[in-house]
């Protein structure tokens, strides 16, 4: 087998050195009755060429050749080949968690840079080394707020990503945490009076996403004010992190839970992505996940180490702030390289193109009779529209034009049947947008 660096002779030499006659002897501590007598029933072995052929064949059964208008938490953006070249350096790809700091300074400094970039982007004081994704970052932010306030009720905007809410409910179920939802108004943004009515001194956190699941940008200041007046913390989730290239950072938030997939990570059918939690310095000891800190070595040289580990499971066990161990380090590195490439100017230009293309798409769509915008609040690269027909039916028609249509909002929001969530990024060309609009128009005009 090509991955195994031993000849039969070497195996025999090693067995002899150990003093056993056969490899079977080394497994003697497994009761005989439980040792497999036959080889496992697995496909393979495949040569490298066959492995590639297998996955190419699977890839061909997917959506190659289609233009997609899906976002809803996963976004297509340009990624420089430089990012991947760095990521595939074995020194990053095949290294372990940097517990041995002297021979992991590359990873540690890169994490320190990641933490800095995340702080700059979110306007927060500290950011951790990564969480699994936006959904678990949001959930862990709520658990952090629960620890900080000692309260067990959480108010969650209904316009928070439906799957983020589902994950929160899964985690909350057994911890005594009570999750309640706050609705939205015709603007597409949070129902502030509903929030105020629900806020009492037993609420640990208010959770709101911006831009929210409908693409609508939330006014955070009044939400923060209401939350803080009740002694609750404000958790702001960001599912489309690129929006922060053009939007004011959520400085009103006490905790920011972000999905960083837009920064150099492929959609990859849902993962791996990179979550991040950013917060205020005074809350750092209740933060989950790894943190890298700057320090000096014996000779006074600057260096970096994993720090404040007394929060973590390998030290604190059942008293840890979270059970997270393995995180998404390589994805955080991708985000770091990607954002370094974009830089101060690039992230702005990319964000501006998203905004311009989404605005253009909406203005073209609004020319279609019977189609109207669902909400009035400003948006970034995603917006909701109401169709005169079922979105599913329209989407089925779009497939004929090799278009993957917008997200069907009715799936998660029964009150929004006939509403579609359209996403347009810098990767979508004007020609593709025009074809999409024409195809939607045709689908709506076709006889039922």
């Amino acid at each position, binding site marked *: *087998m090509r*991955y*195994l660096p031993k000849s039969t002779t070497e195996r025999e030499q090693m067995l002899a050195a*150990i003093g056993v006659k056969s490899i079977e002897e*080394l497994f003697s*501590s*497994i009761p005989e009755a439980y040792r497999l007598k036959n080889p*496992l*029933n697995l496909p*393979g*072995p*495949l040569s*490298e060429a066959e492995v590639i052929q297998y996955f*190419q064949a699977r890839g061909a*059964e*997917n*959506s190659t050749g*289609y233009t997609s208008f899906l976002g809803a938490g996963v976004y297509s953006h340009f990624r420089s080949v430089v990012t991947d070249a760095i990521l595939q350096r074995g*020194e*990053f*790809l095949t290294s*372990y*968690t940097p517990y041995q700091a*002297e021979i992991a*300074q590359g*990873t540690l400094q*890169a994490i*320190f*840079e990641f933490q*800095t*970039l995340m702080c*700059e982007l979110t306007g927060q004081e500290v950011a951790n080394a990564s969480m*699994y994704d936006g959904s678990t970052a949001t959930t862990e932010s709520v658990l952090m707020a629960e620890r900080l306030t000692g309260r067990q009720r959480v108010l969650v905007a209904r316009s928070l990503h439906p799957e983020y809410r589902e994950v929160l409910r*899964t*985690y909350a179920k057994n911890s005594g945490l009570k999750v309640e939802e706050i609705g939205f108004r015709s603007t597409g943004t949070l129902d502030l009076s509903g929030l105020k009515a629900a806020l009492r001194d037993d609420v640990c956190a208010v959770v709101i996403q911006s831009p929210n699941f409908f693409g609508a940008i939330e006014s955070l200041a009044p939400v923060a004010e209401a939350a803080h007046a009740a002694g609750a913390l404000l958790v702001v989730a960001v599912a489309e992190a690129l929006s*922060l*290239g*053009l939007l*004011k*950072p959520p400085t009103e938030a006490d905790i920011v839970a972000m999905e960083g997939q837009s920064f150099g990570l492929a959609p*990859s*059918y849902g993962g*791996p992505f990179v979550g991040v939690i950013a917060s205020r310095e005074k809350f750092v000891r209740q933060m989950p996940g790894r943190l890298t800190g700057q320090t000096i*070595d*014996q*000779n006074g040289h600057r260096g*970096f180490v994993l*720090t404040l580990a007394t929060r973590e*499971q390998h030290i604190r066990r059942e008293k840890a702030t979270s059970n*997270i161990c*393995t995180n998404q380090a*390589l994805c955080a*590195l991708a985000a770091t390289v990607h954002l370094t490439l*974009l*830089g101060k100017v*690039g992230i*702005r230009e990319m964000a*501006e193109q998203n905004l*311009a293309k989404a605005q253009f798409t909406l203005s073209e769509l609004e020319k279609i009779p019977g189609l109207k915008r669902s909400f009035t609040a*400003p948006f970034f690269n995603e917006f909701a529209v109401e169709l005169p027909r079922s979105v599913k039916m329209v989407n089925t028609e779009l497939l004929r034009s090799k278009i993957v249509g917008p997200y069907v909002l009715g799936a998660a929001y029964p009150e929004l049947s006939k509403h579609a969530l359209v996403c347009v990024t810098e990767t979508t060309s004007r020609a593709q947008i025009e074809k999409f609009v024409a195809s939607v128009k045709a689908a709506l005009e076709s006889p039922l």
Partner: protein
Amino acid sequence: MMNEKIKKASRHTNQNEGLIFEKSSPGKRAFELPPLDVPAIDASKALGGFYRKEGVEGFPEVSEIEVIRHFTRLSTWNYAIDLGMYPLGSCTMKYNPRVNEYVARLAGIATEHPYQPQELSQGCLRILSLLEKCLLEITGMDAITLQPAAGAQGELTGLLLIRAHHQKHGNPRKKVLIPDSAHGTNPATAVIAGYEVENIKSNADGQVDIEHLRHQVTEDAAALMLTNPSTLGIFEQQIPQIAEILHAKGALLYMDGANMNALTGVTRPGDLGVDVMHLNLHKTFSTPHGGGGPGAGPVATKKILEPFLPIPVLVEKEGGRLALDFQRKESIGRVRAFGGNFGVLVRALAYILAYGPGVRQATEDAVLNANYIRKHLEGTFDLPYTRPSMHEVVFSDAIQKKHGVNTMDIAKRLIDYGFHPYTTAFPLIVPGALMIEPTESESKEECDYFIDAMKSVAEEAEKNPELVKSAPHTTRIRRLDEVGAARKPILRWRPAAKRGEAAD
């Protein structure tokens, strides 16, 4: 000072490199977009009060070559499997096949959106389906979810399944039993699942104390979380009896599959009485650690827990068409948005396909390497538990302690010989542990280098302890002030002018 013949490494020039922020200069750029092909708009008008006037303060402005050099220089400061042996016990740092990276990036694989229609996702679903079948065959279990993002999340998923099962029978129960040798994630996870942790003691052989266990398994016990082989690298021989004791009281057996590299193709947890387990695809199934992740932690169960699996569940329809089933009334819900770390799952399947049934040879070689190292280092280092080793061996620093040298010192000195350290000070039941897991990826030659290096360090510990205690000597930085880092945390870079504020 050091025997150059056995030293795998030599010094080489290592470039200095500051933080990327310190290289920034306004006007430089490393990225250009195609021209905008729709009318430009005034963002400040469109966004009003939400508009970020200043741009993202602190973001660097550098050129492409500077980005390449910056990260390439940083990379040279890392140790990596691609450079040499990484004997971290319990971490299974094996070779990460390059073809796995290639296939995970293919068009049609990396490009797919989780919400695209299922009829346009049959390729992705077939990958998931085949991986499920392979993992079920390897574990001997009945049902599986690929959703958990890492081992710890797999543990949580497993415990939530157990909880749902007990709940269905009227009582979620109160406690989870965890051996004192367990990974820290086990107790941390039990708490999140709403359980109290009760530690169970190992006996003198490093096995679960069966008589003690009998007393601890009451109607209050939801489950026992058992790592097998244990973190001592010893196979838990009484596992069928343990399962019986638990089942007699209605409790379930959870197996932490972190050490599955010792068992794959040789025995199956499902046959041993295990009810639910997680796998670490970034350990046993070779997906790269990437400096700390991403991983994937699939959870395999027996039939009784299947109704509770996270949604969606992959199902096969007529004609072989695959679909995702979201309508599962008894499901524990989601543990993560979307289907899981798909790109990691792709790599794991590529690994399994490359081996096929021959994956047993990898297990055999891993166990062979661990025992070869044990044989050669026994006597030089204290072996507190003498039962047969599986894929890893745990020594203690008892002999070197006499000279004031501890496991961390030995580990740091190993760096000077060109090796990554083994796992230090874990498991907790072995004071001063040296936990060594070579994996199957090491040749006899590399194992011999390692043995020689370890013996040489032991000799140094005796003759020149200071040399060992002040190691490493060859790295570009020396031991770091961790206490200072924690006392006054500096967790981000700030521009020079702002440093004063940071100190507040």
